[in-house]
């Protein structure tokens, strides 16, 4: 969903909880269930989830409750668990599934990996860099081209929560294009992410 700005601080979650979530995800990773890979970036998305993994089983219900409580007017539409290897990056992209245009994408960093540089493109020539802090909950503007690089040697885990206003959720949850990537006339070095 578009909003005015690149990211927005929504609130904070307890770091003890995040440590537990990180531990839960580490355990889950033994299943090797990540179902999306681009370079060194791995993700498990609820949108392509044939094994029907549940986020509450992966990360624990407490983190879900903590984040959804910050959006009382929204429904949790979907989620992603993200694993960005140390010294790797996510290329410039705009999130392209149809629901991205209607849902708030909320990110929670699950482990404390400093030196992960995030950026949005303000224009073709102007990149705006920023850092996201461990312990905070952020909303990202995924309608604008963005990318990131993990400059640390450690791998970074995060959870994306896609929250949709309840009325829009009811209206569009069954739309047959809702989790489709909409593309046209693709040119250049660009990616579907």
């Amino acid at each position, binding site marked *: 969903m578009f909003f005015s700005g690149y990211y927005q601080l929504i609130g904070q979650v307890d770091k003890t909880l995040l440590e537990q979530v990180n531990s839960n995800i580490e355990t889950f990773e033994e299943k090797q269930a990540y179902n999306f890979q*681009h370079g060194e970036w791995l993700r498990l998305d609820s949108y392509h989830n044939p094994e029907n993994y549940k986020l509450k089983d992966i990360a624990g219900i407490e983190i879900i409750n903590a984040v959804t409580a910050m959006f009382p007017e929204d429904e949790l539409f979907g989620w992603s668990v993200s694993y960005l290897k140390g010294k790797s990056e996510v290329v410039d992209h705009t999130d392209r599934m149809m629901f991205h245009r209607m849902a708030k994408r909320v990110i929670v960093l699950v482990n404390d990996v400093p030196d992960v540089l995030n950026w949005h493109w303000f224009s073709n020539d102007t990149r705006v860099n920023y850092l996201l802090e461990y312990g905070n909950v952020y909303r990202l503007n995924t309608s604008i081209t963005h990318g990131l690089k993990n400059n640390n040697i450690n791998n970074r885990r995060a959870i994306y929560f896609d929250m949709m206003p309840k009325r829009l959720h009811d209206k569009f949850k069954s739309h047959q294009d809702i989790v489709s990537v909409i593309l046209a006339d693709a040119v250049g070095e660009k*990616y579907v992410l």
Partner: protein
Amino acid sequence: MYFNNLTQTIDTIPRYFIDNVLEHELYIITEIDKRAIIGKDNKIQIIANMPAKLVKHVSAIGSYIYSQQYALLKNMVIYETMLCRPPVTLVGDSSQHSRYLNRIGELFLIPLKGQVKIATNDFNTTSTLTPGNIYRINNRIGNRFFSSADFVCAAFTFLDFDLKNYLMPHDLHSPFVRRKDEYADPSLAPDYLNKLSEKNAY
């Protein structure tokens, strides 16, 4: 928006709404629609390019539609108002699919003069649109318009009022260019795209 047919007849419209517009037909000056809202090479006159006397009567059609409180238009607001004079054959197959507005909004056509036959490969049917009726068009699927030489219609697109806030104009009008990264190249992410149904990965 997608629905399980090519077109849907929503209602009739009193004849005087149509006559009022046609009284000023002289002022209907259409030009190629670069956004291909309905199809490639369509000719339209957007409301911003209409003289006041035409605006008044075209807007009245929109107001009439609102006033009927159709359930499918609940929470929807008019996003675009235009008059259309499609070429005799109009192809609506390409860019319109990638226009978010076509996926999430509604397109209504109100023929004013002549008639148009619409065909598609998605359904084994054709529709003929004639003056006096309000039609909903399935603008998510590919189609062909076959218009009589004198065909002219009013067209309205509708969008959920919340999405008017949440969507950037270039999203609504995709596939037009956004800064830096507008359209991903499917060839660079084949594994991911292969998980999607072919029909939706234009």
